[in-house]
């Protein structure tokens, strides 16, 4: 079967898993005994392992498997994780991330390397308790293990169903069929353990019976009936472990309490391989047992019928579609595997009563449903409907471009109609424009992504950087559920990472220094995202020592970047510009990630490219705040259209302060006197390399010219134009691979007559024309 078509999906899903794992591991460092987080991480690692195994990426599978073992140890022993263990887990995540890069670049087959081998060895050492901490990590002799919340995954507990199956060894791929049987059994309840390992079966290896231990609400006879419909099974034995009397009322698939060690399990049982997929477990309500035992009795989830026994409705033969099912898990959003429960009706007593596995405990009835007990319920293979689909981002780009083109064409038709207006055509074109605008808005909306996709992995970055620099820092994010266009999100990745590293390297002080200043030893970096009209404002603020303006100005002078007067003026009034001087750093020695004098200027350039602005505020002893003001969506830009040398250009409205007629002041360079002070004048004609003739430039008394006051990185200035055309919401089109190499062009749009109009980065323009 060709798995390559699932490759991109695998990469995407695994990337997401790794990001979540990283994020949660960093959380674990501050709350090392948070069982909920440990469970989630375990599940994610388990899922990564499963997908990698299915895709045949053996090195990833093996490492994930090993990481899962390590997680499982902590999960079962219920001991806190030490930072050293988290380091190893994070290193594992990083190594898998590298392999994912190989998968993406189709550098296959994947190869293991020395780093991976070392990692495996470290995991092994941790598992054996040789590396660190250890008493908690050391393996316990059987029977002396601190009591886990539930019996070992493969050890049958009272109420568990034990299924022993002999495959028909004459059928093709009996091992693989055994693996698929395992998947099928997961529809009947929670499979707690399988011998041999399902992954071994998946590889077609089988040399004897397969043994499943599972929790299921179905009767033994029903399970037998289900299995009897399965082909290729030579022999089937199903039995249920006896229940203590007080627990018989509880369905076997309910979650078990965490309070008390379970009854001693038979110790002669071979250790089974954990293989359940417990995120589809029905939620169970835990109540103390009537006997007062600390071991809790469990009441059924949501609706006793939810997983109650009933006639088997479907069991289909294994075929290639079963493989699709396996892979399908990767394609689907987490969704209930069973259909939603239909409302019961007396008129339909035999209606299927599917089991919502994620049932809410609040709705849990105290007693099992009578009908369910009568066997009315049925297991159905629910339609695997999802409410969302994954779409390649380049397709979204294509849809946006196409709708933008349609808008432009509609505008051209409108203009053409204005030459000789036809009322019917006018009405139709109005409606067309409205519909296309709505469609374009929809196309923009589906590209919107919460900033959290970026910030989610930043706690890890902060943690790593802080550890490397011997500092202590925490990241607080606020408002990262704000939705931004994916182009903005992608463009923000590097700038935000750099700002965080700057905050740690330059801003946050060493713990002892902070304590001497009366601060907490742990520095705080706050990343805040707020929406202000059509803009998104992102602030990265640290509570560190702030920028030493005098030292920075002195360094700029020493490096010959500025005159002393200019440096001091900038340090006082425009710290952002001073900090963004290429090559300038206040550090005596560069750090690993910051302090090399490259960075903030590049950050500013990237932000400018996104149509945004960067400003900096800093207070000695209190910290520094870098503020990025960005358009929320780049698809449509608010532009001021101006004309120079018979060509129209667009200026981002965010950069425009005002338009006026100006009277030139005498002298060079050209300036004008304005209420805000004397402003430097730049000619837009210089864009095309054709400035005005010097004679024309010579001001004559009373002569005026149209100009635009713009925000520049070095303060305001006037852009002299031939004509101000007006404001417009323009559909931005990408420049393409050739033109995007020209600094100073932000994009292009098409005017109503079909002529391209360039959108100019005025800050870059000023830098280029000097």
């Amino acid at each position, binding site marked *: 079967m060709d798995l390559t078509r699932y490759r991109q999906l695998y990469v995407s899903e695994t990337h997401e898993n790794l990001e979540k794992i990283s994020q949660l591991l960093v959380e674990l460092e501050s709350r090392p005994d948070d069982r909920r987080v440990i469970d989630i991480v375990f599940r994610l690692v388990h899922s990564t392992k499963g997908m990698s195994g299915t895709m045949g990426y053996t090195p990833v599978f093996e490492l994930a498997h090993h990481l899962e073992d390590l997680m499982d140890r902590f999960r079962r022993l219920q001991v806190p994780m030490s930072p050293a263990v988290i380091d190893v887990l994070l290193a594992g995540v990083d190594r898998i991330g590298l392999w994912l890069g190989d998968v993406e670049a189709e550098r296959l087959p994947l190869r293991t390397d020395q780093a991976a081998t070392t990692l495996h060895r470290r995991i092994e050492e941790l598992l054996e308790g040789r590396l660190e901490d250890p008493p908690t990590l050391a393996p316990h002799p059987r029977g002396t293990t601190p009591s886990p919340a539930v019996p070992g995954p493969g050890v049958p507990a009272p109420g568990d169903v034990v299924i022993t199956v002999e495959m028909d060894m004459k059928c093709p791929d009996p091992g693989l069929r055994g693996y698929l049987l395992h998947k099928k059994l997961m529809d009947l309840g929670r499979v707690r353990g399988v011998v041999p390992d399902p992954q071994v079966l998946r590889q077609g290896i089988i040399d004897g019976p397969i043994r499943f231990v599972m929790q299921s609400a179905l009767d033994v006879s029903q399970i037998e009936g289900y299995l009897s419909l399965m082909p290729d099974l030579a022999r089937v034995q199903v039995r249920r472990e006896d229940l203590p009397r007080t627990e018989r009322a509880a369905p076997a698939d309910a979650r078990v309490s965490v309070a008390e060690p379970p009854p001693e399990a038979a110790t002669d049982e071979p250790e089974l391989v954990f293989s359940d997929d417990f995120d589809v477990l029905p939620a169970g309500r835990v109540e103390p047992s009537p006997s007062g035992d600390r071991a809790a009795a469990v009441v059924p989830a949501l609706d006793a019928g939810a997983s109650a026994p009933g006639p088997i409705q479907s069991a289909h033969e294994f075929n290639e579609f079963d493989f699709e099912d396996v892979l399908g898990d990767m394609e689907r959003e987490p969704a209930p595997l069973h259909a939603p429960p239909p409302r019961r009706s007396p008129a339909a007593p035999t209606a299927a009563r599917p089991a919502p596995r994620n049932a809410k405990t609040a709705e849990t009835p105290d007693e099992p449903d009578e009908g369910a007990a009568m066997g009315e319920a049925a297991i159905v293979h629910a339609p695997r409907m999802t409410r969302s689909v994954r779409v390649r981002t380049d397709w979204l780009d294509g849809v946006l*471009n*196409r709708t*933008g*083109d349609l808008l*432009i*064409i509609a505008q051209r038709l409108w203009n053409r109609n204005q030459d000789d207006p036809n009322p019917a055509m006018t009405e139709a074109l109005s409606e067309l424009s409205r519909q296309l605008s709505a469609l374009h808005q929809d196309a923009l909306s589906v590209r919107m992504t919460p900033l959290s996709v970026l910030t989610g992995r930043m706690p890890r970055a902060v943690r790593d950087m802080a550890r490397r620099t011997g500092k202590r820092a925490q990241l607080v994010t606020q408002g990262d559920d704000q939705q931004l266009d994916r182009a903005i999100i992608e463009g923000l990745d590097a700038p935000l990472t750099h700002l965080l590293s700057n905050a740690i390297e330059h801003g946050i002080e060493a713990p002892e220094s902070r304590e001497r200043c009366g601060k907490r030893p742990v520095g705080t970096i706050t990343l805040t995202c707020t929406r202000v009209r059509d803009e998104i404002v992102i602030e990265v603020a640290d509570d560190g020592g702030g920028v030493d303006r005098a030292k920075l100005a002195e360094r700029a002078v020493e490096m010959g970047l500025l005159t002393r007067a200019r440096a001091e003026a900038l340090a006082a009034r425009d710290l952002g510009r001073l900090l963004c001087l290429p090559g300038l750093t206040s550090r005596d020695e560069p750090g690993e990630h910051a302090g090399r004098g490259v960075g903030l200027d590049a950050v500013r350039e990237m932000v400018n490219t996104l149509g945004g602005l960067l400003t900096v505020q800093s207070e000695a002893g209190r910290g520094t705040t870098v503020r990025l003001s960005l358009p929320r969506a780049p698809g449509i830009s608010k532009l001021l259209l101006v004309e120079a040398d018979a*060509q129209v250009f667009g200026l981002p409205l965010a950069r425009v302060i005002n338009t006026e007629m100006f009277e030139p002041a005498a002298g060079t360079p050209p300036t004008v006197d304005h209420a805000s002070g004397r402003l430097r004048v730049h000619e837009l004609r210089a*864009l*095309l390399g054709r400035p005005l003739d010097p004679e024309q430039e010579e001001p004559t008394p009373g002569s005026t010219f149209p100009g635009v006051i713009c925000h520049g990185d070095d303060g305001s200035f006037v852009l002299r134009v031939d004509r101000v055309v007006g404001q417009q919401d323009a559909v931005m*089109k990408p*420049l*393409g*691979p*050739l*033109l995007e*190499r*020209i*600094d*100073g*062009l932000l994009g*292009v749009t*098409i005017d109503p*007559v*079909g*002529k*391209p*109009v*360039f959108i*100019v980065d005025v800050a870059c323009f000023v830098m*280029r024309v000097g």
Partner: protein
Amino acid sequence: MGFDVSHVTEVLPLNAVARVPWAPCWVSGVMNHQGRVLTLIDLGRFLELADTPAPTVAILIDRADVNLALCVAEVAIVEARDAVRIGQIKQFLPQAALITEALSTPGLEFQHLDIERVLDGIEGAF
């Protein structure tokens, strides 16, 4: 000049061309064609040919992801099977390395361009 027609997608009249700020002098401008913004390259200028007439048509080139058109004064299509090799390549051309051979067809002599190298040169020069 001539090149293999298999690289050509379409031949278009130049219309509503916008000049490109800060672009090399051999970039004629950009033009909208069915929603695509084509970058127009003045082939004569790129090849540094002297006294070439002003371009009137754009030859849209089939090149992945690059909306690029070569602008020339006139276009003629000739049958390759009618072409015969003649003489030497005109070495005095500044960009002679981009020319593979000199060919002749009835009524027309031309230099055959290595169009892949021309396009690589254009992309590299941006």
